[in-house]
């Protein structure tokens, strides 16, 4: 199929092309809902069955870091929406600026995630042979990034949880399976999103998006917002279990 300007050969009008691409992205997002849905189901069932282990696991996550990342992603959705608005208003330079901001915010998110993951590796909280929920509590010198007060609190929580669930260590691994599975999948989607944004930026710098034709910005925006919404689910599900104490 040849392309005439922005119009691909299989379409008759730009309107048809736009409607088609938009419908395609919405349907794709439905498949993503089903994809994440599977792991959310596994999470839900295991959280219900092993609540104590999940609570202990959740409390080892850093609320400040998680909260910060949530704000970062919400901001990136804002900048993305601004990019779409700029495109629709025909403000070509602004598109590139907002896309760049979105990408930068995405990288900030990755940076924080890297810090969190690295911490988990050091603290023996990755499912597998070396997994030990009590590692930091038993070896405070190895976990210097946790304050003594926090370690005490953690020790208390673990003891309390062990009383209710003697197999706490095994079940806590399930929490971390969910943690790495869900955040890993989410991060992978963000990487893909960042790639899409870079591709958009390339087009935007070349001046391809006008008030008449800006559909790619629109539908990548849809994708980015979806990835953001997934995080809005993940944050409370993973970080905020039983935090009211």
């Amino acid at each position, binding site marked *: *199929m040849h392309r005439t300007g922005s119009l691909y*050969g*299989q*379409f*008759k009008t730009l309107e*048809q092309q736009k*409607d*088609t691409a938009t*419908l*395609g992205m919405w*349907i*794709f997002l*439905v*498949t*993503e809902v*089903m*994809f*994440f*849905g*599977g*792991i959310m*189901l*596994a999470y839900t*069932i*295991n959280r219900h*069955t*092993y609540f104590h*282990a999940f609570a202990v696991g959740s409390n080892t996550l850093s609320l400040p870091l998680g909260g910060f990342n949530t704000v970062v992603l919400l901001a990136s959705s804002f900048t993305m929406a601004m990019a779409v608005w700029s495109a629709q208003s025909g403000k070509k330079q602004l598109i590139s600026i907002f896309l760049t901001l979105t990408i930068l915010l995405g990288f900030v998110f990755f940076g924080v995630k890297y810090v969190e993951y690295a911490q988990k590796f050091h603290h023996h909280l990755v*499912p*597998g*042979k070396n997994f030990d929920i009590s590692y930091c509590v038993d070896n405070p010198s190895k976990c210097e990034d946790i304050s003594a007060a926090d370690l005490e609190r953690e020790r208390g929580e673990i003891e309390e949880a062990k009383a209710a669930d003697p*197999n706490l260590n*095994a*079940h806590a*691994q*399930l929490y971390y*399976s*969910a943690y*790495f*599975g869900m955040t890993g*999948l989410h991060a992978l989607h963000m990487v893909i999103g960042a790639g899409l944004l870079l591709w958009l930026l390339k087009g935007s710098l070349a001046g391809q998006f006008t008030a008449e034709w800006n559909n790619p910005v629109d539908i990548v925006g849809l994708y980015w917002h979806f990835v953001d919404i997934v995080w809005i689910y993940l944050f409370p599900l993973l970080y905020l279990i039983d935090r009211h104490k």
Partner: protein
Amino acid sequence: MRTQPTGPEPQMPEKHYLNATYGIRSWLLTTDHKRIALLYLASVTLFFFIGGFFAMMIRLHLLTPNGYLLSADTYNRMFTMHGVAMIFFFLIPSIPAVMGNFLIPLMIGAKDLAFPKINLLSWYVYVVGGMFTLWSMVNGGLDTGWTFYTPLSTVYSNSAVAPAVVGVFITGFSSILTGLNFLVTIHTMRAPGMTWFRLPLFVWAHYATSIVMILGTPVVAITLGLAGMERLFGLGFFNPAMGGDPILFQHLFWFYSHPAVYIMILPAMGVISELIPTFARKKLFGYHFVAAASLAIAVIGFLVWTHHMFVTGQSTYAAVAFSFLTFLVAIPSAVKTFNWTATLFGGSISFDTPMLYAFGFLGLFLVGGLTGLFLGSLGTDINIHDTYFVVAHFHYIMVGGAVMGYLGGLHFWWPKITGRMYPEWLARIAAFILFIGFNFTFFPQFILGIMGMPRRYHVYPPEFQIYNVMSTAGASILAVGYLLPMVYLTWAAFYGKVAGENPWPATGLEWKTQSPPLTENFEVTPVVTWEAYDFHNRPDLGLDVPGGHGPRIVAPAHGDD
């Protein structure tokens, strides 16, 4: 009475999609939906032979109760890989990726699918997934059963599970992309006048199939992803040693894999809904009901998955609920069967090969579908679950149903795809051989199941031998039935009689353009003013309609754009 095209001998068109461009790059980088369909045809046929090879090993081995041909481990790999190859790499793509891809734009009057590049991507994704799975097959193979139940697959199996899981995971995305493409195309790319209720039922069937593809496949993707993670990295959702639950795996797995069987049969039903009106020269009886039934099957099909798990010890109430829903999903299929049968009454029926396949489908799908009732009923399922009764049931539907539909469709549309006709008498003989071979192969398996022979057994008590021998004998006949079309269809593509635009004649839009079609399908976008299968209002078909054609006038095939 055999269909004979009338008029002067047709000529091959000068330019068409096959000779528009030359060279391997023009095929491997094509975005023409018709070429992509042929790429898929080649790859699914390859996997059909691979799966067929494993089937041959299974049946040969089961000739004797003591299993002298293969070791236990090897046999277990044979049936596993037979299932994986046939289900994921042949049945699920077959009709949608070959015929859906080729025909949907033609049937709706479009130049291509909505996303031609994504269409090509879907084929490459399939190929990559296929390569991973092939790697698993040649690196020791897979022995978990195609169902990958945990913890056998994640912890205990010594076979090449990880590459197979990765392969199936990747290929799932091919399915998702195809479904996405079809859904959007059918929504936004129909030609003027092609309203929803003028669409051929083949298109309705693929619409319903696409809904299942996009909603179900992601779930098996994440399920296999988690299982793969468990095997490779020790995640524990399905591992009881870590507090995980093997039954959770089964729920997640069957949530897709039951709707998957509808992905396999709905397109075949769509083919039958084209064949019967064409070869009875009569509108499909109850068009709206058949369209609605396709959607009903797709929707209700998502609500029955636990009927694969009636003996896992799950909640009795859940089992009762799912059995109830399972009986509900049987009804739309029954409705379709009655509508197909009713179409025959008052028709003008010819017995060309595609129609023979349609008859075969009717008979075999009938048996397969009805035997589902034994399995959906809780009381009888306890006894026949995981026996050869189940094996016979699903082969009647998947081979007797889906493969018959696939072959019937291939024959019907071969003249459109290649511009040439296949040899009719040889094809009819092959169809009979297939039908007879099929029944000899699989009917004895119902008996085996009732007698109590469990499935996936490399050795069996001697009292089961006679039916196993019968089944293997039938399989050898079946194999001949499959080989013949492979050979003569290939021959016909190059040397068959030139077919012309509409040899049957049939009423679909795809028949109102040259055979083979141009790359852009239609010289001029058609404008549709006729209903589907409306033989009484199509003077362009050149048939004798008593009382003349109806008041609705068919627009010229090449009207204004």
